[in-house]
């Protein structure tokens, strides 16, 4: 990602962001609200369009070409703050709709794969329920499984635990930690500093559309270089 900028009207959300992430790397992006961190990862899979600079995913340029966008999206999985499961489909159908419709997989194979990932997120017994019958934490784990069914190489997480009750945050984080241990490339926007410390290879602090600091967790938490990082950590870790 090179000198990427984006404006919402006259407001510049991303200010010439340059960032490189290696395969297998786990990056946590944090920062105050309005700092552009969500917009950053939403630009990576074209839910938002960047207006300046270039984004490359696996060497493919993200531009107006529908073919490129499809190629990039097929290697990306996305998990949203509000889960965005399809409420009219059962859990199992939520997981199989992508593989059958987009990848033209046979229904039986897709269901097998879906059950495999449901077992991984430890809710195979909920397969035939509807999303709204599940707790928030379960819904988010279904959402993670739904992305994994598309066999992505990179997973994007946009504040995956912000809409959850405290006791449910842990089950989702545990799932994400397992995923990280399996070697998945992950970009996670979150305020969960504990998660950042244990899992991340790199932690990034964003503020006002800029990357303020990028460092390994030890360095980031115990020896931050920037004043801005220190005040942010003070605020967030005080409680």
């Amino acid at each position, binding site marked *: 990602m090179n000198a990427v900028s984006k404006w919402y009207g006259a407001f510049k959300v991303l200010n010439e962001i340059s960032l490189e992430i290696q395969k297998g790397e786990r990056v946590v992006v944090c920062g105050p609200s309005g700092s552009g961190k969500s917009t950053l990862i939403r630009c990576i899979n074209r839910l938002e369009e960047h207006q300046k600079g270039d984004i490359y995913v696996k060497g493919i340029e993200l531009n107006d070409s529908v073919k490129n966008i499809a190629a990039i*999206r097929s290697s990306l999985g*996305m998990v949203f703050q509000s889960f965005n499961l399809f409420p009219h489909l059962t859990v199992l159908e939520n997981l199989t709709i992508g593989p059958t*419709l987009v990848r033209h997989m046979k229904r039986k194979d897709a269901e097998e794969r879906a059950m495999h990932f449901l077992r991984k997120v430890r809710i195979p017994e909920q397969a035939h329920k509807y999303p709204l019958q599940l707790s928030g934490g379960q819904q988010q784990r279904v959402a993670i499984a739904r992305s994994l069914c598309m066999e992505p190489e990179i997973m994007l997480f946009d504040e995956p635990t912000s809409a959850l009750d405290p006791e449910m945050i842990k089950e989702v984080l545990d799932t994400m930690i397992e995923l990280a241990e399996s070697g998945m490339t992950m970009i996670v926007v979150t305020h969960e500093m504990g998660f950042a410390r244990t899992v991340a290879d790199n932690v990034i602090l964003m503020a006002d559309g800029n990357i303020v600091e990028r460092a390994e967790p030890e360095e980031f938490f115990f020896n931050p270089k920037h004043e801005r990082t220190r005040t942010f950590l003070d605020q967030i870790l005080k409680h």
Partner: protein
Amino acid sequence: MATSEILEHPAELPPVLASGPWRWMRRHFFSSIGQTLLTIVVAAIAIRTLWFLLHWAVLDAVWVAADPQVCRDAGGACWAVIVEKHRPILFGMYPYDQHWRLVLMIVIYLATVIASLTPACWKRSLLIPMWIASVTAIAVLMFGGVLGLPYVPTSEWGGLPLTIILFTGSVLFGMPIAVLLALGRRAPLPVARGLSVVFIESLRGVPLITILFVAVNIFPLFLPAGMEVNKLLRITLSIAVFFACYQAEVIRGGLQAIPRGQYEAAASLNMTYWQTTRRIILPQALRICLPAMTNHIIAAMKNTSFVIIIGLFDILTATTAVMQDPLWRQFYIEAYLFVALVYLVFGLALSMYARRVESWVAVGRI
């Protein structure tokens, strides 16, 4: 203090309120002097009206009479007029000795529709052959000209079968058009959006009668000489398009209720526009606007009676024509009540079914 009481009696049950019919009556009808007076006045009016209706419709009514003079002497309702005239009312100008074909047509139609509305039958492998078979059978019965059945041109069709054909045709053609218009109005392409807006707004702004008049009298002028599109088909399509414009706006409301996250989730799974629309957005949007859609479907059923102005004999027009008979003419109220009952049966069936579907949606059965 209240808190301490609750703590002392953790298993306390709510007090049982006195109940019973007298208490209920007192609460709802006689709770104050004003309300008591109102209750008495309304009850008096209601009883008098019901008494009159009972006499007119049942006690003094004539049920069977070949001679209208019997009705005139009786003073009550003359239901005999329906016994006497039900065939031209229900079947219009269709040849009298061929009416059995129409009865069979209505039976096939009702069976097909009831089967189509039953969730157990919602399989493509069943519905498509069933509809092809029914439509073919109905066409053979209505037109004739094969299998030894005399040919009957559409200009002689009438009554309930015509109402059914107009209504079903306009809903079957109209719903897909409505969905396309609603999608078009929210499409990313400005051309599609513009066309949909112009189409919807211009047709919605015009009375149905005008559209029917144009379809029947003006549209043929634009066709090349010798080419002819069946009048019944033209009219069905006109009602369908009119219905579609209203329905499109209802569906648009449903589309707007779908959160953006649904589109984003589908996009992140790499689904195309049509895949997203067909599998994610429309199923949810149509569920949301089901009550309002039912509303317009029932309105469409009654809109079929507008064909009176272009000389088709639907059930209402047929009744008007039948009641020109000078012998029976004065009993038009009874005849129209009968037609109202037919509409009411269809309308009630539709709204009861729609309510059933809503409850299925609520429990996630469909």
